[in-house]
Structure formats: C-alpha cells, structure tokens
C-alpha cells in the first residue's frame, strides 16, 4: 500500500492499524449511498412536521453525515 508514497501518507498509516483503517474509512461512503440513490427517498410519505419525506430525509442527513465524519475522526486520532 505504501510503496512509493511520500512521508505524508506514511504518517497516516502509522497512526492507525491497517485493519481499523480500512473499515473506518468506508463509513465515509454511507452518505453517498444514502443520498445518490434516489429511490430511497423520492417520496412524499411519511411526512414530518409538514415536510414531505424527500425534504426531511435530506435535512436529516446533514447531522448524520457530521456524526459519521466525527466517528471516523475519533477513530484516526
């Protein structure tokens, strides 16, 4: 993995075990799947506080994404 990479990438590897590294970084892909696959959320129901599902689902993914990024951040610290 680290063949030919510069110092920057080596420090990355040093701070984490390679097993922990691989699954934690995959967490970052979850928002892409959740938001780019439209059949998941292009619907009016269930609505919440007057918001059709399409809208509150997207809004909900804002704090969820922050949380997921935070989880990865904690993991690599």
């Amino acid at each position, binding site marked *: 993995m680290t063949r030919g990479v510069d110092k920057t*990438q080596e420090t990355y590897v040093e701070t984490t075990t390679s097993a922990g590294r691989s699954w934690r970084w995959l967490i*970052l892909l979850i928002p892409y799947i959740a*938001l780019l696959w*439209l059949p998941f959320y292009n619907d009016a129901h269930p609505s919440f*506080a007057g918001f059709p599902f399409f809208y509150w689902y997207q809004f909900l993914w804002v704090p969820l994404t922050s949380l997921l990024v935070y989880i990865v951040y904690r993991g690599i610290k």
Partner: protein
Amino acid sequence: MSDLNPVNPVSMSVFIAFFVLVTVIGFFAARWKRGDLTQLHEWGLGGRQFGTIISWFLVGGDFYTAYTVIAVPALVYSVGAYGFFALPYTIIVYPFVFAVMPKLWKVAHDKNHITAADYVHGEYGGKWFPAAVALTGIVATMPYIALQLVGMQVVIKGLGVSGEMPLIVAFVILALYTYASGLRAPAMIAFVKDIMIYIVVIAAVWLIPVKLGGYGHVFAAADAHFQAKGGATGILLKPSQYTAFASLALGSALAAFMYPHTMTAVLSSASAKTVRKNAIFLPAYTLLLGLIALLGYMAIAAGVNVKSASDVVPALFGTLFPAWFIGFAAAAIAISALVPAAIMSIGAANLFTRNLWRPLVAPNLSPQAEAANAKIVSLVVKFGALLFIVFLPTQYAIDLQLLGGVWILQIFPAVVFSLYTRRLNTPGLFIGWLVGIALGTGLAISQGLKPVYGLHVGHEDYPLYIGMIALAANIVVSFAVSALSPRRAAVTTA
C-alpha cells in the same frame, strides 16, 4: 425601470450602515494577526495560521456565496425538487473534504505550495501542465466572480436602486481593501457576513411559515403550483430526473474544492487537523442552504410573482418583512458577495503569479515582487469581472460559470489521484485533461449550454451531468496514456 420599488429610507440606511461597517473591518484586517504582507503566503494565504473557528467562518463564507443565496431558491421556485440537488451536493462534499484535503494541506504546507497548480508542479515538475491547471482555475473563477456581482445587483435592485453605479462603488471598495489586506480582509468580514446570514435565514424560516399557515401549507401550495405548471417540475423528482440529480450532486461535490477560492481557504488553515474538524462542523452551513432553498417554495405560497426568477428572494422579503429587516437582509446578501469575490480574486491572483507569470515570463521574481504582482492581478481580475457584468448580458456569465464547473472538474485527477497513486504521469494527465475539457465543452455546447446530456445505454436514456461524463473520459485516458509511457520519477525539487 418600471418594476422598481420606491427607495425606502429605513432599508437604505440599514443597508449602507452595514456596508460601511464591513469596509472599515476590511481595511483594519491588515493589522490583524500581523504578518509581512509583502510575502505571498502572508497576503494570499493569511500566513497559514487560521484555526478551526476562523476557518469555519472563512470556508463557510467562501463556499456558500451570494449567488447561491439568489440562484438556489430561484431554481427551486422555477422547477421544484430538482433545484434541491444543492443539498445532497453540500452534504457529500464533506466526507470528501475530510478524506482528501488534509493530505493536500500537509504536502502544501511542507513544500510551501499556495495553489493546486503548485502541488501539481511539485509532484510532476515541468511548467506547461501546471500552467494548464492554473489557467483552468483562473478561467473557471472569473465568471464565478461576475456572478457574485449579479447577486449584489439583484439585492440593490430590490432596494429600489437601478444602474451600475452602486455596484461599481462597492467593488472599488472591495478591490482596495483586498489589495491592502489580502486574505485577512475576507476572513474577518466572513464573521459579520455569516452571522448576518444566519440571523436572516433563521428569522425567515421561522416567521414566514407562520404568516403563510405552516410548512404543510407551503409544500401544498408549491405542489399545486407545479401541477398547474406541468413539465419537468414538481415537489418530488420524476424518475427520469434521478440520474441527472445524482450526477449533478456528485459532480458539483467533487468540483467544489478544486476551485481556487475553496482551495485557498483550505490551505490557509493552521493544520491538517483544522481541516478535518471543519469537515465535521461545516455542514451547519448546509442546513442553512437547505432552508434558503425552501424560500423558493415560500415565495410560491406567498403568491410572489417575478419576471426573473433571480428576484424571488428580495421580492419575498419585500412582501413580508418590515423595512429595517429588508435593509438588513439585503446587506447580508451583498456582503455574502464580497467575501467569496475577494477570495476568488486572491486565488486567481495566486495562480496567475505563481504558475503562469513566474515560470513562463519572469523566472527570477523575488518574493516581494511576487506578492506585489499578485496584488495587482487581484485588482485586474475584479475589474475584469466588473466590466463583464456592466457590458455583457448576465446570461454569458451564467453560461460560462456552468462551463467553468465542467472545466474545473478536469483537474481532479491531477490534484486528487496524485495524492494516492504514482501510476499517473504528465503526458497521461495532460492528454486526459485535454480530452475532458474538449468533450465537456463540446457536449455542453451541443445541449445549448445546459448541464446535462442524455447518455444512451441500451434502449434507455440516462441524463447525466456533463462534467461527470467528461471526468470519466479524462480518468480513463489519464490512466491509459500513463500506463503506456514511462512512470514518473520522484521530483526532488519543489
């Protein structure tokens, strides 16, 4: 013009008061966190010392521009759910920022790079490909600056003042304090701008639905409006819009931090950890953007009828709010134009000086001369944008900004992939870039400068963001050509 409101003295006074305030701040900023402003990394990157909070305001103020505040609700007002691609776009951009930008920050910090083209030069050497990367950034940014002016023009018009004079005055002031203070000016003004925008948007999304009978009613009114309007509109997407919506969101997210202004804001952070922390906290601005987008529906529910969709936000505020708040909101949006316009001109000036002027024209430029050169270029860039808006139709700037998005995405392989692989080399990346630019431009022109192209797969037609189609071709060509030519050697000199 006949559709102008009469000038309200209260709105106007509030507007001018806030404008004067940020002007004072802009000039004062030169003394803040004092550094030697004759050095390019001090003038153009604020000395690379901005901590988490300053960076949060700076990137937020830079990335969520005045044009966004005007254009996103305008699109939602016109077509509905499709305009909401801005929300997934500004969510999925942050996992990317978190994973990639700290690596880039670290290399840039270690080798004193201040632009993306500096990084490409550091990795691959040569001068022509870094120059191409720099040129892409400059060309993509110019119309973006022009559109900030459009945003400002819309709110000034909303206050009842027509003509170009206020715009020219605002921009001359902006140009002068950017010249004097560099990145410190927009960084300080960003505090004022962001707090004002938060106040405006929270007040608006709190008070407007109360006046209009709740969010349920706002969405119902929008639904009824689009059903009557027909076509590819509605408060939900048509299945035929899925691929366009998703590819626009993804393509915009990948392009977002390739722009010189966002790159500049990231590289001015004090550490890689600052960048990572900000990837966690910046989504707060995305909530704000989502709420701003909803203003488009609120305008429909409030029965706002405008000839040009971009007038929808000022018109909505003008209908529902008292005079002092209209002035405050207009100032918030106008100041939202100043912050990104300043950073964009600094980013473009850094690119021009570092990656075009010095390597191609004046190789023996001293550090002082380099910074002086960048300051002058920042002026030229801003006046270029101003002339563009004053003398050419606004539609040109909108079309060019769209093309700019397609173009800037073509530096993605050189900037991002180079952090992870050594399989790429200059011939591969250069030819890939060329193919991406040519294909993207050609497809966009063939579609009458629309961002999506219907790709035939089997018997189905999948509309996709042109930038992504061009990027895919670029990536394939970059790797293929690189595989056929010698591997890059490690570049020892930065």
